[in-house]
């Protein structure tokens, strides 16, 4: 008697798919459906306060409007600039902190814990903290500068075109540099000692050791950190919203503050989702770039391809 074939869900070749099914379903419901739904709404005149407008198909009108809007492109460019400056500064400072902490032999754990403090604050609190620091009239920074005789005027930190952008980047860098520091420190801990010692024996100076051994080894960690940060950097929305609200006169407007205003205050969720899709593609572009760099760095180090 021929063996009866088991039902398809018991067949070996389907087993991996069955095991993955819960994860696939979870991703489907939690990520894919909301994404598809918001993509759909970006082609509608959906307004939050008029649920029936969800079915009002407007084609590419939302996209045409935002692409022909100068304010949108300004916010777009400013967001790229913000991402580039903030992420690179965080990398440089994080790398410096990680290298310094790696040298410490006593109290390292305590310092590592202290270093993580800024990450523990919610971005809203960080926003309020720096709003107060940078306040022109009662803020501690201006008061300190005046007390030290370094300035005799009220510097408009949150109003001036350059200073306001500096202030929000400063707050963002303060909050997130430790993410880089921790990831790079983990990289330094995992680093084999042999090549370093060999280099020293060969007479390399500290800069050469750093440039040709430590840094290439750290690059995969750098790109992992960059990838993670480029995905969650939009958390800076809270900081900017509290500190400047994207103003004055749109001087610190980023895509995220613009999306929130259009989506909630103006209740134009369809148009906001069209902007959000542009923002998503921007994030994907950054992530893709860092990911290819990561693969290249690992290949260079002889790791997985």
């Amino acid at each position, binding site marked *: 008697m021929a063996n009866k074939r088991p039902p398809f869900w018991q067949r070996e070749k389907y087993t991996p798919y069955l095991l993955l099914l819960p994860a696939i379903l979870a991703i489907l419901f939690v990520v894919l459906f909301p994404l598809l739904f918001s993509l759909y709404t970006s082609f509608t005149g959906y307004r939050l306060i008029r*649920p029936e407008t969800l079915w009002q198909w407007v084609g590419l009108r939302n996209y045409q409007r935002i692409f022909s809007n100068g304010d949108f492109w300004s916010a777009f460019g400013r967001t790229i600039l913000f991402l580039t400056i903030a992420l690179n500064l965080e990398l440089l400072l994080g790398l410096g902190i990680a290298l310094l902490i790696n040298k410490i032999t006593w109290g390292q754990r305590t310092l590592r814990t202290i270093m993580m403090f800024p990450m523990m604050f919610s971005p809203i609190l960080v926003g309020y903290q720096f709003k107060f620091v940078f306040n022109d*009239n*009662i803020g501690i920074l201006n008061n300190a500068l005046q007390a030290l005789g370094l300035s005799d005027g009220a510097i408009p930190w949150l109003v001036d075109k350059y200073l306001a952008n500096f202030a929000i980047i400063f707050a963002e860098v303060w909050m997130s540099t430790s993410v880089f520091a921790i990831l790079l420190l983990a990289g330094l801990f995992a680093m084999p000692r042999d090549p370093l010692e060999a280099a020293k024996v060969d007479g390399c100076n500290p800069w050469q050791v750093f440039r040709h051994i430590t840094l290439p080894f750290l690059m995969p960690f750098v790109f992992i950190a960059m990838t993670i940060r480029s995905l969650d950097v939009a958390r800076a929305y809270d900081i900017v919203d509290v500190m400047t*609200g994207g103003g*004055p*006169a749109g001087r610190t407007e980023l895509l995220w503050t613009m999306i929130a205003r259009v989506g909630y205050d103006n209740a134009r969720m369809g148009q906001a989702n069209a902007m959000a899709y542009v923002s998503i593609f921007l994030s994907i572009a950054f992530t893709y770039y860092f990911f290819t760099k990561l693969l290249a760095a690992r290949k260079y180090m002889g790791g997985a391809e």
Partner: protein
Amino acid sequence: MKTTIKTFLAATALTGMAATSLAAADVDYGTFDGYNLRVKLIGGAQYEPLYARISEWEEMTGATVDVLSRKNHFELDREIKQDIAAGTLDWCVGSNHTSFAPQYGSIYIDLNGVIDEGTLAEFQPLALQNSTVDGRLVQLPRHSDISNLYYIKSMFEDADNQAGFKAEYGYDLTPPETWNQVKDQAMYFADAPTFYGTQFVGKDEAITGRFYEMLVANGGALFDDGWNPTFNSAAGVEALNWFKDLYEAKAVPAGSLNYLWDDTGLGFASGTVALNLDWAGWASFFNDPENSKIAGDVGLVRAPKGSAGIRTGWSGSHTFSITATCDNTEAAASFVTFLTSHDSQMVEASSGLLPTRAKVWGDAKAQFAADGNDFLVTVFETYAVSMEEDAFTPPLITPWIEVSNEIWPRLQAAILGEMTAQEALDEAADAARLVMEDAGYL
């Protein structure tokens, strides 16, 4: 003789108290044993004292109140919009505001016929009229807002200032009657970065509102009868230049464009600003030695006039609304009636919030006089006149906040010198026209 007066005062106070408690007992708030009323309220220091009374209503009616949120108005607005979108309006009473109400459509019921007619008759007609959208009374006014001009008295009494000002501007230094005088005085008093002539809120609907009232005071209007934007008129340019000139002269703090109400209130209380247009709710704070460096030195005049001889008077009311999806409208109506009752409004009036019931104005003033608080008596007298004669709301239209969001960034751009007042207003008018077209008004 002294004893007699004291006895008389005590007796009067007792009579007053008895009358008050009688009034509270007179109203039947109904019985809703075991019912759980779900509400979303505006939170913040000024609004909390009233909520301490909620337990009284719970005891009287047997119901319990579940406060689902207690946020500032802008956050509450977002939450309510999300509730509308998600179809989760499973609560009964929400805090509302005359500026916000028109955008919510029909989620709130018409309170005519729901709230007792006799009760409604005790409210000021203008407050009820401003709470009406498309003929429906969608909200019950809790307290009203309008701004008047606070100033540091000693600065106006100082002989050197008086002589110096007259020499420079050619007329006497007295509390201002027009906005042009405010401008002159602010420029005269300013000594940045340690002292400023005046200040203004610089972003969001706050600066739109301040611009709007100045526009009206100069004889302009936001829209014509057909809802075409008309604020880019000569009156609008004049209004915007008032802000711009003060900013450029450094007569206001450099960070003004990032200021909201707390910043201006705290700034004036810090004693570094000579003139401050502000709400009545700040009056007690300004005159409280624990919070304010200018306590005892605060003067108040009615909001000045613009070039058309009209006083500024941007006004609105904080209100309560009942959702159409509420499962116990009767309990909700009882609750909002209680929170806007005579006693409740007396609680709010004691901190300077302006009542919406006609009788509370007189009673609160009598209370302040009895307590020897002459300052609050003056405050209530001044605000009573401005509420009666000067108050006007923004247009009660659905896209008001959206129109405002098109206006204020351009006002900021002009004030910062990125464009002229005319260019900024022309651009804002074009953007506002688009919003009005989308909303079906044009």
